[in-house]
């Protein structure tokens, strides 16, 4: 625990030692709120909910979370500091967890900064707070799942660009599988429905949508948590076997 805590602190405050953190926060807020207002037609929809906010989240995360996650291990490998880190009395699992939790907390902080949206909705109308709360829970869980994949790809290379591209590709697949437009496309080329259903079960969107509508199921929670655990275990293996 002590070592996880030390690594967590180093990594979390590390974001703020460089301009990366501030650039990320600003871009994330502009993208998420901007898409809701201008593309999602937030005002003219005249709907006191955050559906139009949450619907863009997987797409915003698709590019921004790899930007946060790409440096987690790739930077350590490039600069050689992982030799320093992993020869300290710490297990690889603790090191992976400490770094992952720091990244996740940072992204959660960014997500919480969008609380101006529910405040706006609450001021203008009379929203149902349940779906908003569960939507935020879903957003944070989904962010964790995205980040765990980025942490894994970051451990595979010492090049941050490769890490970024790899994680965008994997996340893109996991988003696409559940995207209605993509599913309709699959249906139109006569892919059997059971197969499409099975595939979409692996998607972030499939397990995120119910939460934005106020439905929290054990299955969705398990999906995100197991995806995080699975990626992080692969991450540990990648670090221990990369010689």
């Amino acid at each position, binding site marked *: 625990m002590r070592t996880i805590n030390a690594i967590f602190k180093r990594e979390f405050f590390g974001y703020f*030692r460089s301009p990366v953190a501030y650039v990320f926060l600003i871009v994330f807020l502009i993208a998420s709120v901007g898409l809701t207002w201008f593309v999602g037609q937030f005002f003219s929809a005249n709907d006191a909910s955050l559906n139009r906010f949450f619907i863009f989240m997987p797409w915003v995360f698709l590019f921004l979370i790899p930007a946060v996650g790409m440096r987690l291990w790739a930077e350590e490998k490039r600069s050689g500091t992982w030799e320093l880190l992993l020869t300290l009395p710490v297990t690889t699992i603790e090191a992976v967890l400490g770094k992952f939790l720091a990244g996740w907390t940072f992204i959660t902080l960014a997500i919480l900064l969008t609380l101006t949206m529910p405040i706006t909705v609450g001021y203008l109308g009379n929203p149902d707070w349940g779906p908003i709360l569960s939507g935020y829970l879903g957003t944070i869980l989904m962010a964790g799942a995205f980040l765990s994949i980025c942490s894994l790809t970051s451990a595979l290379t010492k090049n941050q660009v490769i890490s970024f591209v790899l994680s965008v590709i994997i996340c893109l697949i996991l988003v696409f599988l559940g995207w209605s437009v993509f599913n309709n496309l699959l249906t139109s080329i006569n892919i059997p429905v059971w197969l499409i259903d099975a595939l979409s079960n692996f998607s972030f969107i499939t397990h995120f949508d119910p939460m934005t509508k106020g439905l929290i199921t054990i299955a969705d929670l398990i999906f995100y948590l197991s995806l995080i655990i699975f990626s992080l275990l692969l991450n540990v293996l990648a670090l*221990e076997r990369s010689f």
Partner: protein
Amino acid sequence: MIEAENLVKNFGSICAVDNISFQVKKGDILGFLGPNGAGKSTTMKMLTGFLPPTSGTARIGNNDIQKEPLAAKRLFGYLPENGPLYQEMTVLEILNFIAEMRDAYTTNKKNEVIEHVVETCKLRDVRNQSIETLSKGFRQRVSFAQAILHDPPCLIMDEPTDGLDPNQKKQVRNLIASMAEEKSIILSTHILEEVESICNRVIIIDKGKILIDEKPEEMRQRHPHYNAVEIKLGNTKLAEIKEEIQSIPEVKEIQINGDDILIIPKGGKDIINIIFDVTLKNNWSLANIEKAPVLMDEIFGDLTQN
């Protein structure tokens, strides 16, 4: 105690370290020498548990680094090659991080320990500067500081004086020497002068194999000119002199180069007194007498170039 037992490391078909065994006991300062690419750093990485060996075991204080990594890692300080550090952190932040990782120091104890290494490694003036703004010498000293922070019984250092200027090199060497009694120290280097000045044991490896493992003095005896005597005489009767010296039973060979006469003893015996007596007895006007320099570089070259 640091122990390597039949360590082997293969990278694909390349054998980087080939069955290396040695022990570093308390009080030892082991100089780990070898040309670039000989397997020095790979061996150190295996000792510290960063690289898993293909076969063999590394132990720190009887803890197998692969089987009981945490117990083993608590017992050593490690200075990796080139002293990698988190660039954006300040010196104090890094030392704080290492102290927190190292053990459950109370805040008071932690500050005391950090204060102590800052003082020992002369980092006071730069303690609030970030690593990226520091010169190579300071960075190396910060790396050194993080390695000795918890006063470990074992120290493993990969080229600790790399990048330092001559004064700093001397300081670091003195520092290492001053800690020697209480610790087992292994340091890799390609500076032979360093080995002569602080190490009490030398291992030379080449192509992954140990060539020699002995005391620096024993290594010096490998030099063909070990204990050879150089004299300079005012006389010109060189032929006579040569004959006279040759008749001394301890002398193996004489080389004459202008005025300088180099006398090589049999079996590396110390013959400087004998030669001195002979010159006195024969009334040769002796201008200079000294032991021929024994350069470790030459021994190193002979061992590693064949």
